[in-house]
């Protein structure tokens, strides 16, 4: 077996970066003053009420990972996460593995893609609730792709829309202008009512569902 030293070093560095990112996200999240609106919907999950598709905009990924880890994963709700095949996706995959969450790798932008099939099985067979970013992996921001809707249609699991606001946050220069709430800021999480997607919705009806999801994910984004 041949070992590529450069690749191995890259893997080690990504692994270390993943652990550091995990520690930073948890440490930062512990300082936030958190308010959750609609916590009863998270409680449904904690009581084993069946898998849901946890959806939020990509710009809230840091807040969402911290909140969902503390409010769901640590309380026994089985989660999974779709991460892209890119280098950023690898880093995110390392972070969530360090949290004990097994990610699904790939892209859900194409209907019926291998990643979407893996997510379908994770939901339908294993009862996992996937964490999804409908405008990922590369935007455009706040425009939902149909993958999450198709997944809801085929699994029967509702989408749980999550929106976030912070009293004070850094904005990164990335395509999504990622928000990272500053230490000790007030963070509000709005958990929307679970949104089932009719299995027979196509064309205009499916587009209407997509626009409805976008409006739910935009709730409380501005603060």
């Amino acid at each position: 077996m041949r070992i590529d030293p450069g690749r191995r070093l890259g893997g080690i560095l990504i692994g270390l970066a993943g652990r550091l990112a995990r520690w930073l996200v948890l440490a930062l999240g512990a300082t936030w003053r958190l308010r959750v609106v609609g916590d009863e919907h998270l409680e449904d999950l904690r009581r084993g009420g069946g898998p849901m598709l946890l959806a939020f905009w990509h710009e809230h990924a840091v807040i969402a990972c911290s909140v969902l880890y503390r409010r769901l994963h640590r309380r026994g709700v089985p989660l999974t996460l779709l991460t892209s095949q890119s280098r950023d996706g690898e880093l995110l995959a390392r972070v969530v593995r360090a949290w004990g969450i097994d990610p699904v790798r790939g892209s859900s932008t194409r209907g019926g893609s291998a990643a979407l099939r893996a997510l379908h099985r994770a939901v339908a067979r294993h009862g996992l609730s996937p964490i999804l970013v409908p405008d990922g992996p590369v935007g455009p921001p706040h425009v939902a792709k149909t993958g999450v809707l198709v997944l809801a249609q085929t699994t029967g699991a509702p989408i749980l829309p999550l929106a976030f606001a912070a009293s004070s946050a850094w904005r990164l220069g990335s395509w999504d202008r990622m928000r990272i709430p500053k230490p000790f800021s007030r963070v509000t999480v709005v958990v929307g009512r679970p949104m089932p997607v009719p299995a027979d919705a196509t064309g205009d009806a499916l587009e209407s569902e997509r626009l409805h999801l976008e409006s739910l994910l935009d709730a409380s984004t501005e603060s």
Partner: protein
Amino acid sequence: MIEGLSEAQTAGLEVIAAIAERPVDELERRHEMVADLGIDSPKALRLLLDLEDRLDIEISDEAAARMDTVGDVLDQLAGVG
């Protein structure tokens, strides 16, 4: 009626027929999955899931993207089994 199919292709045709809600013997190689059989995104996902499960295969994104017609699907399944 499409003839001369392998066991895997016959199973694949049955899966297409079930998803499209059409009798197997009505399907033709030239039928387009979307335009002729109404296989939209949710149905495409179910089709690929059912093909993988029934035939115990993995279908790559590249192969899935080439499945535009019934004949395309059957061609993809030619070497299976």
